[in-house]
């Protein structure tokens, strides 16, 4: 496959034709923040956290393929502000209580908030009334922490070949739903890849919370994006 050369924040980067900006950047050691993107999944472009400016236009780096001479802005003040606003909205739209959440220190949403210096949201909380589905013997679904990134929908379909999750409704009414009366009525198994794929604490294995002590959790040691970029999805 032919080589493509382009720039990210002025730095020359090469990649393979057909590669996305996100993957080409990763291969060159440049971190582009993301939430809905996940290893081995077809890109989705739904969370927009990976937004970059490409030749003057805002694009999602996880779906936009690279081309010769392309000029990408990734770490500019404008893009950082844009991403911060998206993260902020994800926080206020759900009920994210990091202080007692078992995903704390392992959560990609929380880690991104730290990376972007978000200590308190700038928008008012919506405080939605959302259910917790504890019906399954080994896995639970806390809708309070769901950011509608669609990872679980796609991992279940594409990697587990089960189709346990789907989205229903549109716009601000959009929500995650299981394909059954409740999680217990689906084909979900604790060993499915989907169980470990949620970037937040929405889909969690049961009865293992807080097993990793504070100080030894993945994001206690280093911020998200500072480690091995190929392996750090969903610690």
């Amino acid at each position, binding site marked *: 496959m032919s080589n493509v050369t382009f720039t990210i924040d002025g730095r020359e980067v090469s990649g393979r034709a057909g590669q996305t900006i996100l993957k080409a950047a990763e291969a060159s050691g440049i971190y582009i923040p993301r939430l809905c993107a996940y290893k081995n999944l077809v890109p989705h472009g739904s969370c927009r956290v990976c937004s970059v400016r490409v030749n003057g236009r805002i694009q999602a780096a996880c779906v936009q393929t690279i081309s010769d001479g392309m000029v990408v802005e990734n770490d500019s003040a404008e893009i950082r502000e844009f991403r911060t606003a998206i993260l902020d909205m994800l926080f206020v739209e759900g009920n994210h209580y990091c*202080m*007692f959440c*078992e995903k704390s220190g392992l959560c990609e949403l929380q880690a991104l908030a730290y990376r972007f210096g978000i200590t308190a949201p700038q928008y008012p909380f919506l405080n939605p009334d959302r259910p*917790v589905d*504890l*019906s399954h013997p080994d896995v*639970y679904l806390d809708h309070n922490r769901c950011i509608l990134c669609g990872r679980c929908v796609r991992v279940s379909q594409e990697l587990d070949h089960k189709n346990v999750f789907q989205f229903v409704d549109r716009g601000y009414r959009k929500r995650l739903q299981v394909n059954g009366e409740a999680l217990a009525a689906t084909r979900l198994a604790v060993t499915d890849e989907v169980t470990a794929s949620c970037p937040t604490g929405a889909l969690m294995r*049961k*009865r293992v*919370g*807080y*097993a*990793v*002590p*504070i*100080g*030894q959790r993945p994001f206690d040691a280093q911020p998200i994006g500072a480690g091995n970029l190929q392996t750090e999805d969903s610690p």
Partner: protein
Amino acid sequence: MTTTTSSARPGPTRKITIHPVTRVEGHGKVTIHLDARNTVTEARLHIVEFRGFERFILGRPYWEVPVIVQRLCGICPVSHHLAAAKAMDRIVGGEQLTPTAEKMRRLMHYGQIFQSHALHFFHLSSPDLLFGTDGTARSAFGAPPAQRNILAVAARYPDLARQGVMMRKFGQEVIRVTAGKKIHGTGAIPGGVNKNLSIAERDALLEDVPQMLEWSRRAVGIIRDFTMAHLDELRPFGSFESNHLSLVGQDDGALDLYHGVLRAVDSQGQRIVNDVDYQRYLDVVGEEVRSWSYMKFPFLKSLGPKTGWYRVGPLARLNTCAFIPSPEAEAARQDFFALTQERPNNITMCYHWARIIELLHAIEVIGGLLEDPDLQGDDLLARGPRREETVGVVEAPRGTLFHHYRVNRNDEVTLCNLIVSTTNNNEPMNRAITRVARDVLGGRPEISEGLLNHIEVAIRAYDPCLSCATHATGQMALSVCLIGPNGELLEQHARH
């Protein structure tokens, strides 16, 4: 202090606002009720806020509970963390903890007792006690308001203030290495703990133990000497005879703040609750609701609400236990009971002395635990047959703390009842301020600075966490109201 005149009612009503804050954690209001001859009929400590942890824990998975409920409090979160963890141990059938898990939890708990008692004595109470001893004040704790704060202590007794800060810091370090954070950690999980103690963590703490022990010994001396020197004044102050309740060691009745059985004695030392398994606490304790407070009034069911109320906390614990299982604190306990000829001590102001004896005990326990190689073990979790209902109890710094839960087969919490230490002490605190109001007011229907201070001193003997008992948001404050025979507000003072 500022004085304002309110026109909200006919006739002049003075409102006096006093800064700085009250050194009572939480938000409290005291009303003093007078009859036509201006005699105090009753004084009430009103708890007017509500946090509602018992409701919003419902529907959550059980393993979250020890981490969520500890957020009731920022001073003794470890108590709630451990009481909930002990309860959840039984849900997973893991109540027979591994030696490493049990000792890590005990270390965490005694670290908390040490830091909380140090905070209470040095930061909150010493300003009441230190400045009356130089002969310039009218009473043992009648120093001018400007002196009654930790900054004045730091200016006048810099060594003592520094010791208080360093002792609290040491206790918090113990919590940090066992729970992961100084405040609101995650160390105790259902059936055990999530970490052991590294050699480096152990050695760093061991280095400071001799100094902490020495300062604790000195603190016992200070409060003992203060008490003995002012005994005539302290003996009646806010005092009354009462029952006393606490956990004691299951087999020997020893002082044990982490685990044991429920024991209660009456004011003369007669056993009224005889070493009952706390899983049956509902057979022992009932809770009465009164319309004017969000805080319930617990009582021993065998005696009923009228006479069954009891005290908890350091004084109650020394009164119920047979002995203290560490040599220096046991010697201090024997000295303490020489004052009352080996009978229960019902002197409210002796809470402070009892608290400092526990401080000494806590550092002795910590020193002993740190030498134990079990803390470096790696068998951290126990499991057994599942249960659906559970009670966890610990002796928190302020007294007995009950956590009661039900968890269904889906791991969902379906019932939560918490009786916190300050709730257990609700009736005694009301009695203490009634006694103080009667003694200080003496038929004069006015709120003097002395009355305000004496009420605070009486409340502070119990070291209450008003916020944790009812669970306030907002700033701490204490207001005092005088209520006339027809329910009319005669006068109000507020401290913000």
